[in-house]
């Protein structure tokens, strides 16, 4: 059974909670004691419907203020797949939460109300999903029951959204007309929308091909830890431990180590105590080489004819996550794969308005929840690929030295002169 991660965003009004509730309830993933508690609480707060946000809104501050302050992770399984939902609140800290949820997602689920069509929030969600390069998008046109299950209305919304997405980097988009409240096209196909011949949402989530979400082409293995047992039986053992970022490594492959530039041959791959012939993402493994190269944490194994860019200067789309604005000229700790260094913000090219896609070239700083294109210079060489080609070697975070807070999330883009 495979694991599929997806992210949702929106407010209570567009029926997101009802939809997730239906998925969880119909797959028997909510416990009775949890559901009873949520029903009790919803009544006490005089909500018209059961608000499933209360399932995970357990923090004191959330209960007191009646808001969701953080990404909530929910889990459910069918006989075909296991699912992790990163459910992000629609309003407070929207960008910060959405970016966090999308960073590991295979799929982003965008909900629109059939009566309202595509609104600012739907566009913003699409922009962020595209920026984070979430491989699959699903547009759920909800509340079809309130527009008489009208095919024309559905097609109109679908076309509107598709035309917006042509301005973005969206590879796979599926639109599904649903009624979360009545269950139309959520778990099983709707009886009332016979004009729709696509899958139900759950069927789509269960059967969507996600094998190609990973990059299996460019071999990249960031070394995390060197295994050297001080025991007689493993006297000469030296294993480079790490998680395969992308590509496939096989016993017998000639690999190149960065930054040294020296090459050697893979003589063995140990996957958590078992000897295997090949390693691919997201496996954690230990690679042994024929030659005794000086390799340590932060180094990277790749192929002689397929290597990442090695350099100290890079351009990236950076999402700012902290109250204190990003400073041009400021220095931050940068964490990229298993490498840590420091980075200087050289310049801000523009700030991106995630609602209109407008680029503000006059911007001089990035504030909380803002995104912009930034040039950085690192104190150490980084081994990176463009984020849209490689979500593991193309991402980094920035940490503020004084507070140790994570303040920025970066997606590396190709440098333009």
């Amino acid at each position, binding site marked *: *059974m*495979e*694991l599929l991660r997806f992210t949702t965003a929106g407010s209570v009004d567009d029926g997101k909670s009802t939809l997730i509730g239906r998925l969880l309830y119909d797959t028997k993933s909510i*416990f*009775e*004691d*949890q559901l009873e508690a949520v029903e009790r609480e919803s009544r006490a707060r005089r909500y018209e419907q059961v608000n499933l946000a209360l399932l*995970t*809104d*357990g*923090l*004191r*501050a959330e*209960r007191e203020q009646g808001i969701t302050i*953080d990404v*909530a*992770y*929910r*889990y459910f*399984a069918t006989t075909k*797949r296991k699912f992790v939902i990163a459910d992000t609140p629609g309003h407070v800290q929207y960008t910060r939460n959405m*970016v*966090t949820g999308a*960073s*590991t997602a295979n799929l982003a689920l965008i909900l629109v109300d059939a009566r309202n069509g595509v609104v600012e929030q739907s566009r913003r969600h699409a922009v962020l999903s595209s920026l984070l390069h979430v491989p699959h998008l699903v547009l759920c046109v909800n509340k079809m029951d309130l527009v008489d299950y009208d095919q024309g209305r559905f097609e109109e919304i679908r076309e509107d959204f598709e035309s917006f997405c042509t301005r973005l980097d969206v590879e796979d988009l599926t639109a599904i007309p649903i009624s979360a409240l009545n269950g139309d096209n959520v778990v099983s196909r709707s009886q009332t929308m016979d004009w729709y011949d696509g899958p139900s949402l759950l069927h789509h989530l269960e059967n969507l091909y996600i*094998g190609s979400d*990973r990059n299996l082409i460019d071999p990249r293995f960031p070394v*995390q*830890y060197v*295994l*050297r*047992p*001080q025991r007689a039986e493993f006297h000469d*053992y030296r294993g480079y*431990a*790490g*998680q395969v970022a992308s590509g*496939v490594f096989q016993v017998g492959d000639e690999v190149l180590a960065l930054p040294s530039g020296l090459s050697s041959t893979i003589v063995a791959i*140990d996957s*958590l*105590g078992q000897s295997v012939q090949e390693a*691919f993402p*997201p*496996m*954690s493994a*230990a690679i042994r080489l024929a030659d005794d190269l000086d390799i340590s*944490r932060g180094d990277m194994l790749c192929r002689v004819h397929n290597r990442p860019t090695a350099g100290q200067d890079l351009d990236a789309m950076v999402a700012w*996550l902290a109250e204190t604005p990003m400073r041009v000229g400021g220095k931050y*700790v940068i*964490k990229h794969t*298993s490498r840590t260094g420091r980075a200087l913000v050289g310049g801000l090219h523009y700030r991106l308005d995630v609602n209109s896609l407008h680029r503000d070239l006059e911007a001089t700083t990035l504030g909380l929840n803002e995104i912009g294109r930034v040039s950085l210079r690192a104190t150490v060489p980084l081994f990176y690929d463009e984020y849209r080609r490689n*979500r*593991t070697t193309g*991402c*980094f*975070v920035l*940490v503020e030295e004084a507070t*140790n807070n*994570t303040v920025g*999330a970066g997606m590396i883009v190709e440098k333009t002169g």
Partner: protein
Amino acid sequence: MRFELTELDTLEAESVHIVREVAAEFERPVLLFSGGKDSLVLLRLAEKAFWPCRIPFPVMHVDTGHNFPEVLDYRDRRVAELDVELVVASVQASIDAGRVAELPGPSASRNRLQTTTLLDAIAEHRFDAVFGGARRDEEKARAKERVFSFRDEFGQWDPKNQRPELWNLYNGRHHPGEHIRVFPLSNWTEADVWEYIAQESLEVPSIYFGHRRQVFRRDGLLISTGPHVAPGEHEEVFEATVRYRTVGDMTCTGAVESAAATLEEIIAEVAAARIGERGATRADDKVSETAMEDRKREGYF
């Protein structure tokens, strides 16, 4: 299919990545090991992460003095097998030293007292990373906690002030005196834990399987009689076939009626369960709706 990992193998690979990050970036990590199902899976992940090396950090048990003897036996066997160092932090010692006071009553729980013992041990050994087996599916306050969860110099958790956590990049930076709690099983569910135990053929303490036991009913839970637990005047003792779904302090951990004798039967039972594991078995979470958050803020597991 080629180049495909199962869901369990994916979770395992991600958790091993987290365990190795900690070993690489921290000076003095420690792994909390109680002998319970989550911590024994965590210990297995650490074993596999560093094979063929020994686990490069000690394990620690916060011993309330009210533990199930079967679980302590299991703990000691496993520690000996892996040849890892065991640190026992004793709540009794904290009471004897006057750091905490025993609550009144015939079978008062030492659950909350553990926090002081734990924080004292972290300070004494200068541990800077503390692995725990908590999962996001088990409790609301845990659902929103980070994999790398920052604790200030008082061991406190501030849920409103958590560091954003993206991709597989974990920020473990901290000042001296502060530490990070690390939860590699964050994305595992109760079912995943049991399926993994079966996949790896791991031994678990015997009380997880159905057995005959003298119990009495208290606040809807089946509590075992024993040296630390006395039934009240109106609490009638009877014998039943039970098993434990979670393993904690004898005074506040309830059993469930079950004859499940094999891992397969437990997995089937977990799949069919309609009540969450903490709701079914923990008196400590029944104190209030935010009982877990309140304890966690103080530095609890």
